[in-house]
């Protein structure tokens, strides 16, 4: 979808047009899922966070000043909702704590296992940069940290992943 079309959707959503809002959120569903899983590391909690974020975005969309900032604005709301859920569940999502996926949680396992290599701060940055294509400046704006910190976390993440793949993660070969 072109930028202008997306911008028009945002403007219509700001006017409380539910169909425009729904279409807009569905366009971002994969991105939201990526970010939510990078923080919560399981699909069920990610689903809850996304649901909460959708409702929060609907409630607050009138306060969004610039349609072109919709993606970063929505991502920030989603990240906050993820942390709410994590706090509520009192789970610790460090590397070693990734749970064996539930029977139904078998989607995107290879990607999730790669995420496991990283700590949470690195996962979010990596997903936003490589998964969703944000620039480091935009990631800094979303996470409210300096650009240099974003760069540092990306660098550390790359080193960790280099070690992970050097250990022979065979299923990655030939992708």
């Amino acid at each position, binding site marked *: 979808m072109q930028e202008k079309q997306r911008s028009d959707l945002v403007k219509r959503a700001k006017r409380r047009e539910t169909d425009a809002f729904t279409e807009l959120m569905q366009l971002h569903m994969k991105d939201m899922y990526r970010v939510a899983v990078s923080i919560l590391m399981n699909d069920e909690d990610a689903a809850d966070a996304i649901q909460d974020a959708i409702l929060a975005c609907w409630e*607050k969309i009138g306060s969004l*000043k610039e349609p072109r900032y919709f993606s970063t604005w929505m991502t920030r709301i989603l990240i906050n909702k993820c942390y709410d859920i994590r706090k509520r569940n009192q789970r610790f999502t460090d590397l070693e704590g990734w749970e064996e996926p539930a029977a139904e949680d078998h989607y995107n396992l290879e990607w999730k296992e790669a995420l496991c290599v990283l700590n949470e701060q690195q996962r979010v940055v990596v997903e936003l940069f490589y998964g969703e294509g944000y620039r480091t400046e935009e990631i800094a704006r979303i996470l409210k940290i300096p650009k240099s910190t974003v760069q540092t976390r990306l660098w550390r993440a790359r080193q960790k992943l280099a070690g992970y793949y050097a250990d022979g993660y065979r299923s990655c070969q030939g992708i």
Partner: protein
Amino acid sequence: MDKNEKIIFQHDIEVPPIVMEKAEAAFLTIEKEGRNIMRENKSVKMRGIVKSTAAVAACAALLVAAGVAAGDFVGGDAPVTEVADRSGVSAADGSVGGKGIPTAEGSAKDGFCTVEPTFSLAAYAPEGVKTGVSGDGLVFTDIGHGEGGFTGMLFQVQGDGITDVDMKIDKGALYTTTIEETTVDAIQAIMEGGMPDEDGDPNTHTVYSLIGDYDPNEKTEDQEPRDVIAYHCTKVGTEVSGAYEAGLYYGFYIPDDVTSSKYDLAEAYREQLGVFEGATLSVSVTGKDGSRSTKEYALSVKKLALDAERNVTQTEWKEGEAGMEEGYVYGVMATEKE
């Protein structure tokens, strides 16, 4: 990032059914709300029309009663009470910060800023990182190695003829750090192992930080060899004493029991950093002749402005336009007490 590593994060993913189901439930809620609002608006309009009609009828009756032909009547649009616009809610909920690690940036002649003669505190910043002294005091921000309770806000005691240093803080805690300059090659094995903390001691923590700009899109092997700084950190509690070491740095540590329940991650970090608000940092040094000198610093938490490149400027942020472009991160300021 090498090809395989990048691909795994760019590969198309499948959104699981559970996510779609919950999203659809949210859309349904929004849709119902939208219909309810429309019905309410329509209902209000209808009431307005009924009122208007009743008024017309009443007027007509009066006019008839007064013996005047009811040719003219009050018509036109009835006033419609609009549903309160909820768009006035602030966008604060969208703010994200993290244990947000602000990083000082810029250049100083020797990497330090000093406050006082005799002995002084100098905020630490690695080479190539800007640091400065605010008009009101010495500013500390996370220079990039902050993790967990280790804030990454480092400083050093500087002076001549110092034999011992005693330091204490009445709120929050402290840690010490020794800094090792090394290279990517030297710690390659550690990095490939995920850069774990080396000794497993919960009171110590080592963080590796790359110096200079880093292009995430360049492959590791294509990048110029870079210097790495290893920060070997040790928690020391609220007091620390010992022989003076020129290479020893002190830092602010957020105690493990200090947490925040705030949704906004930047505000959560501010709340945790708030443990230092109003704190007094007391530094005493002993000279070779046995004399002692003590200084006390009042600590406060400040919003520090970011420049256009999102780098910390070390100057206090002044409120401008609200909204998406808030250009600040939180840091700690130390003002020497009279």
